[in-house]
């Protein structure tokens, strides 16, 4: 245990470190060897402190881990017990959340949910067994510290042979940087949600569209958006007008460079550590073989461009020739880009592509009833729609259901609840006819000529550990009011929620997310992985964070094997701060085998409420009807 004296000595040493001219993390420096420099082992001492960092030649304030930016790369080994002392040298609370890492709830690092946070000048000791392998990351869950540098990568080496073969690896950590205070940025969004958008449609765009499509069509299209009081150019809330975009803490001009020897298989561990920015990442001239998503292995799939949501990770293998390549991460709204270089020698660069024209949202994003169903219906969406029947519309706000255990009595209490479609001042629209968009390319990439990764292409390398069909369904709507900058689940901000979403320990359940908004939301559940329902099979890709597209309706199977209370939120930092967060409480079941696989779910839990006897089943006709009926 750290004594106070030991802690003070340690902080004095760290204080001296703050005077170092370069704050760049060793792992993020150009001259990396076969692997990036890491803190490795089972015992780590970290500190969190204020610092000044220089991004693109401009200095501003940061909150850093160990006085480097980004934070140090932590390298763990599957099966080890790690102990991490985190000393808070700030004058405010801090925390570290281990994003995607499966651990006891008390170690998850969310103040007010799993622990009380780390008070100023105190040290918290995290200790947990490492149960998985792969690429993850860590970040603050206190205030808005995550925006200004309080994050870093984690690599967990597998206990057994890595199915992914590679000769060299680099971490590619994407970020967005504000020279201003994040609090100010958030307040500005609350006051004027479009304050950072300089890509709105102008009168010139109108005449241009009128020239292309005819005056009537251009006017009708404007009228439709105007009628909804929406703008098709609301793609990103915070844009290149104020952000600098980073790879490994470096702006485009700073040009982070990763070295390789020609002929090597290079593993890029791509982590989107942005506060607010979804990126389109590509390496012109180089195909990327995706081998891992959110830390878990997938069957290799080759692609040319990946839209990566905030907090998601992808590991890709590239095999570069003897030349330099640009790692180009364009923001989803194309207001800016992060750029780095992969190069056989230092000092080489490659062409930096132009930003492509900013996208506009489409009818499909709007999920309007007419038109939307003309679009293709993927296998994934068919499968999902087939299971529409037994929806639990009553997940929120009555957390006491089922405390008596998983008997029919508690089911009936739940069944008596009726679902209110989200409404109220925090909801400015509803998706009338949402569709499953797992097979869709990301916003703005619909028509690019090269390959683009979709969720439907991800196939887990390993069979899913829990192959039970879901016994219960919960439907949640992602809701918002753009003009008021309110964001929520089911129209209820976290500040107005009175009870957690309740999971029963050991149960397998299906979480269906419906995006009623016009924005992409990277949704993250702490403590448990989502098995993304891309089809009716046992190799569903497993993710800790999934980007739900506008007008999307997708399903995630979850095994509630982690007792305790867990954060569940949109990983866009200011959406979370505006209320798009709740907690999931996995209610411990007495006598529960924590393995969670022998629940003997002989009965299906049906909470659809109205028919009472709906199957979770496979009734394709019903699916079809439901999808056309849409919402009301």
């Amino acid at each position, binding site marked *: 245990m750290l004594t106070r004296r030991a802690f003070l000595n340690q902080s004095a040493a760290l204080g001296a470190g703050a005077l170092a001219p370069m704050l760049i993390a060793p792992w993020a420096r150009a001259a990396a060897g076969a692997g990036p420099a890491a803190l490795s082992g089972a015992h780590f001492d970290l500190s969190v402190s204020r610092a000044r960092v220089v991004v693109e030649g401009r200095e501003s304030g940061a909150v850093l881990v160990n006085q480097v930016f980004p934070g140090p790369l932590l390298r763990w080994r599957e099966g080890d017990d790690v102990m991490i002392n985190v000393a808070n040298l700030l004058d405010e609370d801090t925390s570290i959340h281990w994003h995607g890492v499966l651990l006891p709830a008390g170690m998850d690092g969310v103040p007010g949910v*799993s622990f*009380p946070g780390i008070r100023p000048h105190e040290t918290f000791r995290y200790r947990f067994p490492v149960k998985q392998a792969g690429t993850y990351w860590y970040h603050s869950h206190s205030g808005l510290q995550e925006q200004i540098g309080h994050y870093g990568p984690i690599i967990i080496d597998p206990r057994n042979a890595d199915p992914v073969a590679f000769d060299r690896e680099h971490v590619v950590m994407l970020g967005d940087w504000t020279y201003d205070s994040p609090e100010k940025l958030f307040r500005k969004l609350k006051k004027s949600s479009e304050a950072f958008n300089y890509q709105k449609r102008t009168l010139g765009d109108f005449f241009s569209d009128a020239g292309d499509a005819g005056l009537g069509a251009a006017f009708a299209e404007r009228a439709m958006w105007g009628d909804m009081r929406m703008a098709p150019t609301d793609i990103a809330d915070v844009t290149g007008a104020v952000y600098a975009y980073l790879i490994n803490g470096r702006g485009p001009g700073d040009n982070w460079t990763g070295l390789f020897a020609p002929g090597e298989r290079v593993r890029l561990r791509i982590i989107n550590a942005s506060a607010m920015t979804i990126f389109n990442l590509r390496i012109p001239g180089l195909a990327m073989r995706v081998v891992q998503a959110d830390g878990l292995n997938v069957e290799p799939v080759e692609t040319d461009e990946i839209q990566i949501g905030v907090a998601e990770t992808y590991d890709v293998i590239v095999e570069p020739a003897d030349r330099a390549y640009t790692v180009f991460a364009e923001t989803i709204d194309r207001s800016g880009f992060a750029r780095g270089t992969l190069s056989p020698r230092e000092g080489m660069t490659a062409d930096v592509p132009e930003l492509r024209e900013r996208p506009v949202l489409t009818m499909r994003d709007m999920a309007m009833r007419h038109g939307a169903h003309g679009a293709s219906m993927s296998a994934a969406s068919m499968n999902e729609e087939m299971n529409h029947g037994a929806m639990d519309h009553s997940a929120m706000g009555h957390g006491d259901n089922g405390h008596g255990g998983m008997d029919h009595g508690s089911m009936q209490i739940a069944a008596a609840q009726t679902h209110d479609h989200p409404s109220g001042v925090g909801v400015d629209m509803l998706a009338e006819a949402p569709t499953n968009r797992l097979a869709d390319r990301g916003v703005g990439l619909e028509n690019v000529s090269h390959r683009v990764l979709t969720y439907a292409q991800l196939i887990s390398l390993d069979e899913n550990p829990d192959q039970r069909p879901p016994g219960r369904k919960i439907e949640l709507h992602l809701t918002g009011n753009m003009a*008021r900058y309110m964001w929520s689940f089911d129209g209820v901000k976290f*500040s*107005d929620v009175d009870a957690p979403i309740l999971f029963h320990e050991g149960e397998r359940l299906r979480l269906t997310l419906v995006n009623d908004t016009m924005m992409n939301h990277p949704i993250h559940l702490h403590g448990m992985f989502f098995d993304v329902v891309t089809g009716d099979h046992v190799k569903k890709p497993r993710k800790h964070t999934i980007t739900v597209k506008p007008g999307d309706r997708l399903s995630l199977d979850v095994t509630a094997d982690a007792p305790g209370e867990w954060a569940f939120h949109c990983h866009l930092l200011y959406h979370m701060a505006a*209320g798009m967060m709740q907690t999931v409480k996995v209610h411990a079941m007495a006598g529960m085998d924590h393995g969670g696989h022998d629940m003997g779910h002989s009965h299906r839990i049906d909470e659809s409420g109205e028919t009472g006897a709906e199957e979770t089943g496979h009734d394709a006709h019903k699916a079809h009807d439901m999808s056309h009926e849409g919402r009301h």
Partner: protein
Amino acid sequence: MRAATFLLPVLVAASQANAQEVINPEETAMVRAHMIKHHGGAALTYVEGERFEYQSNEGDPVFLWDAQGFYGGDVNKFWVKTEGEYDFSASEFEEAEVQALYSRAVGSFWDLQAGVRHDFAPFEDRTYGVVGVQGLAPYLFEIDAAAFISGHGDVTARLEAEYELLLTQRLILQPRAELNFAFQDIPELETGAGLSTAEAGLRLRYEIRREFAPYVGVSWTRSLGDTADYVRAAGDDAGSTSFVAGVRFWF
């Protein structure tokens, strides 16, 4: 000291499946309340100078202000509005009013507002009760509509509408209209029943930053009906056209 007492339960917690029950519940509750408040429940202060402008007013120039601001959360706000005109040649306020309102979000795009309005000019101090709505109408018209009832029982109403047309990302043309109604003759205010005054403006602003934009424009005002008769009887023109120049800001 605190670190040590804090670490102990945590170490215990580390071996437990669910640490929540082990960690100091009071401290956790306090942190939790703070955390929850900062996920959707924070209050905000906002100030907007919609029009701060010089009006040529056909050789009788005036300074016009039109500002508002609020303090509050997403639903409940305390809202203050003020507007008025200062006549340079007469060195006096032609109009000056302040409203203090409770504002409640009642729909996705609308706030219902109620409170008091006090006028300092042009006539003797007068106080009104106010009920109004403010928000965004379909097709993105910004609307502020209010009814006023004076201490004498006179009822008047005002409707303001604005629209924004982007010529470029920063050059924005804003048409604006304002209509004032009286529901009865109010001789002491020289106002006749019906539509009493109408105002239309067109302002072209350049947003140096979104928060700060100088502008130029034209503004046309006219008194109508019996109200116009009062104006003419006083020897003034019932209508006037102004060149305007000013700044718009918010913070």
